[in-house]
């Protein structure tokens, strides 16, 4: 029996080695180790052996089974590797990738969201107001003289009922101050409208970001610090600033902020924002509407600022024509 077992081993190892695929090998395994397999048969015949022979033959049988099992596993690993190698053989990895369809958020929304995230980290909350405004909110409350050219129908869209499409988001300063008492620390993104002819750099409608901080002890230094911090976050630490004195009816003093930064093409000053300390006349106008004295020009001070998002997005992304932003052309939108 021992020699039979030994010769089975020789035969089995040869057969295993000659298997050319996994199914042949599996057949071999079943023929040797399966129910009714040849080696299994020897195990069954162990019962026939004498007490003396049993341990010796058992040992041989175990050794042979171990050898056969090992050979099966080794061969199986080899055959698996061979088969799997074939799966990937000749695959041209330079073939183009195939992606799930993806959309994109509009570039102006992306820029808007960046600015919102920065201002929120600086402790500003959001505010909003209607696009259709009263002349009082858009001009009177913002200390704009009754005969100011901006009120003219040539420059501002009016509704038949005398209301208008806000010409700036500064209306939201008034809307917010009407409802809240200091501290007021808000940003307000929104659309503004001017009756301008459309060309590559002008639309009759544009996107603005407005900011307002009113509290006790708010100074020009705070305004400067706030805007410089914000724009450095947006454009990078190489941003340089020039606060040019300017005139707006609703701030005193007023400035225009010019910025030079590599994110803006570097090299030249670009007029980016308008800002200033809230004119006390604005506080008085809101007080009169509120019927109280919530805003005390002797106690409260504040700053306000505003800038356009469209031109920033144009400069930062090198978009040559502002009309791309409103055309909903997927060839354009998919670039951002």
């Amino acid at each position: 029996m021992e020699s039979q077992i030994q010769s089975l081993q020789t035969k089995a190892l040869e057969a295993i080695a000659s298997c050319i695929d996994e199914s042949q090998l599996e057949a071999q395994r079943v023929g040797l180790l399966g129910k009714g397999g040849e080696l299994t048969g020897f195990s069954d015949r162990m019962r026939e052996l004498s007490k003396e022979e049993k341990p010796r033959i058992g040992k041989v049988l175990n050794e042979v089974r171990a050898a056969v099992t090992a050979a099966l596993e080794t061969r199986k690993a080899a055959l698996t590797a061979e088969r799997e190698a074939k799966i990937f053989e000749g695959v041209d990895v330079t073939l183009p990738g195939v992606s799930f369809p993806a959309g994109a958020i509009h570039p102006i929304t992306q820029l808007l969201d960046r600015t919102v995230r920065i201002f929120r980290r600086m402790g500003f909350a959001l505010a909003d107001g209607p696009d259709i405004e009263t002349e009082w909110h858009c001009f009177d409350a913002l200390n704009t003289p009754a005969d100011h050219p901006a009120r003219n129908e040539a420059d501002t869209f009016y509704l038949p009922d005398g209301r208008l499409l806000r010409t700036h988001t500064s209306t939201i300063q008034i809307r917010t101050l009407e409802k809240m008492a200091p501290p007021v620390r808000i940003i307000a993104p929104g659309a503004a409208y001017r009756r301008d002819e459309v060309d590559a750099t002008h639309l009759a409608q544009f996107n603005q970001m407005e900011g307002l901080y009113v509290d006790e002890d708010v100074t020009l230094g705070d305004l400067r610090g706030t805007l410089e911090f914000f724009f450095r976050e947006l454009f990078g630490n190489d941003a340089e600033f020039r606060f040019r004195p300017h005139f707006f009816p609703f701030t005193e003093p007023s400035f225009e902020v010019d910025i030079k930064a590599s994110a803006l093409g570097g090299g030249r000053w670009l007029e980016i924002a308008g800002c200033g300390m809230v004119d006390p006349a604005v506080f008085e106008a809101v007080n009169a509407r509120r019927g109280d004295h919530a805003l005390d020009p002797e106690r409260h001070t504040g700053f306000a600022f505003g800038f356009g998002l469209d031109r920033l997005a144009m400069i930062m992304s090198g978009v040559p024509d502002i009309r791309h932003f409103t055309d909903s052309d997927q060839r354009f939108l998919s670039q951002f």
Partner: protein
Amino acid sequence: MKASLNWLREIVDFQEDANALAALLTMAGVEVEGIHPTGASFDKVVAAQILSSEQHPNADRLSVCKVDDGSGAPLQIVCGAKNYKVGDKVLLAQAGAVLPGDFKIKVGKLRGVESEGMMCGADELGLAKESEGLLLLDPATVPGTPISRLFPSDTVLDLEVTPNRPDLLSHEGMAREVAALTGRAWKPASVFQTETATENSLSVGARECPLYTVRQFTGVKVGPSPDWMKQRLETIGLRSINNVVDTTNWVLMESGQPLHAFDADKLQGPLRVRFAAEGESLVALDGKTYKLCSKDLVIADDSGPVAIAGVMGGLSTAVTESTERVSLESAVFEPGCIRRTSRSLGLSSDSSYRFERGVDRAGVLRASQRAAELLGQVAGATAGGLQTGVGGDGVDIGALLMGLTPVRHVPLRAERITALLGASVPDARVDQILSALGLSRSEDGWDVPSRRADLTREVDLIEEIARVVGIAHFPASNRGRFVGSSAADQRYDRLMVLRQAAVAQGLFEGRSLTLVSESMAEGPFVQTPVRRVKNPLNEDQVVLRPALVPGLLQAAGRNARAGVKGIRLFEVGRVFSAEGAEERTHLGVVLAGPAWTPSWRSASVQEVDLFDLKGVLSAVLGGRVEFQTQPASGILGLAVEVHLNGERVGVAGVLRPSEARTLDVPGNLMAAEITLDGLLSGKPEQAVYTELPRFPAVTRDMALIAPCGLAHGRVVEVLESAKEELLQSVALFDVFTDATGERVPVGSKSLGYSLTYRASDRTLTADEVNAAHGRLKQRVTAELGVLARE
């Protein structure tokens, strides 16, 4: 305003270059929009007269000229230009001249004929960007006059003055500001002399004209202005007319006070100031007839209007070559009144520009005196009597005649400077700044001259200090109190989540304009009456958009025409209604074309249909999204109502193929218009944990043969109405019909459902599941009259 650097330097001691001046003004609040060198300064370029011109013997296009350059000996010049005649005066570059572009002029032969120089065009001398032929000079020019005398060099600054600073709209005003900013000396061009006048002899019938003065001149000799006057006015962009008109322009540009000269002999009776009568009209100096209304202030004589006050004079009383007596107006008109007239007539002038912004009444008489001085000098005129008139009661004419000008007292506290600016400014510096600006210290504050109408409050003085000191003096600080988030914050966040969900579905965000055409304000997606603007710019921007889909459909068409295959657009934005909530936030979606991009791996694509749109809406809106059948109409071939958490929020549908084709979109074009106001006003949803299943689920299929008209929704409704406790979910996995009738009878369809059963507390036995499934099958077949296939 255009300012001449030479002119400014005559008034203020500022010898640095134009760039230094521009930097100074920029940081003081005057924008410098351009710096333009003018004039020409070349050695060996002189005036010359053409004495003769003959055809060049060897070149058809050239002539050989003899010219007199004032040296006595005529020069021979070969010339290619054709725009001259013998006797004309031109500019000659003599041998040795170096023209722009390092172009050296030498004696040499041109096609075999000697040329001793070059006659020049304006472009060759840098006097114009482009020009044709020779620059022809005034016939009175003396040959030999150097070019630098004919075109003196200067620098013109294009200055943008903010509306609060009309006092800067003159060379004296700008020079005074430069002096204040630099501490340099300045000297006005003239000094006021005490006047006597026939007070209030003029009739002024409008408060809008606080002060009107007229000075009479005799012996006026009208003619060309002297070169110094002409050249300087031309340098800053004014056309020289004659010595009288040029004088009024000179004084305007020097002092900021607009003047007007009438031919006194053409006036009938005394001048008066009044509002125009309806229907009156005037032919103005520009030759055009202006119809006036009762809001237009005019200067009139017995015959009617002779000038539109503050805007433009009349043609019939204009100063001409034959004028001998002049009535010179120097006056003040209210800004609003002049602005209205200028706007309504569509007519503006250097005068109206200044009156609209505000002219200082304290300068009226000095300007009139200065004009008298100049008219004597350049036109031999003799100044006669001065008449005045005042409208309203705000002007003390007696004080003005004495040179006493009103001042305004404005308080100023040092602690308010610090409180507003964030750093203190030393008292001495404050004194220096405000004194230099022409203010004088008085008790608790400062006296402000009338020309600075913008300085009325303490904060205005603080502004002046900040402006002159510069922001660098006030250190940047990073401070601010905490504030709570707002409802606007919540809405913003919710919309960003929604946008991201749409992008995750493969959609691109559009942002279109709010104002749309009438045709974009109708159709099944427009649910409300619309609002319109009163004064649209053009017919494409008339209506405040009532919905987003019309714009998105147009965009789908543009994309299709541009060759975009899978059109997947959404927009989140404001829409407007004339009823109910005026401004609402909507979501619009359009889909068309293949659902995915075909690739080398699989060329097959499926076209999107209504079910893609339903899937997108469910994913984007979150919450419980349901769809209810709605009759289709108009452009829609299929329509469903969209419900979110039990509330109707909008419409979705498929355009009829012919409608899609009119937009150039082949195949299915889907659109949905959803109002988001409910979603945005609700509290943000807090996700709540559901226990994960601990026991396995069992699925059983149910195949139904149903009439084609039976809705899947109805099947689900019946299955759910059974309230079978173990039933966890129902999924439709197959729908088919068979036109041959072999597998499914014609007129019927096969619906394949997979029903999932599960209990939370045990593993289900086959018997329980079979029982439940049997009950459901029974219910469906009985209630819907369908056949269950085994």
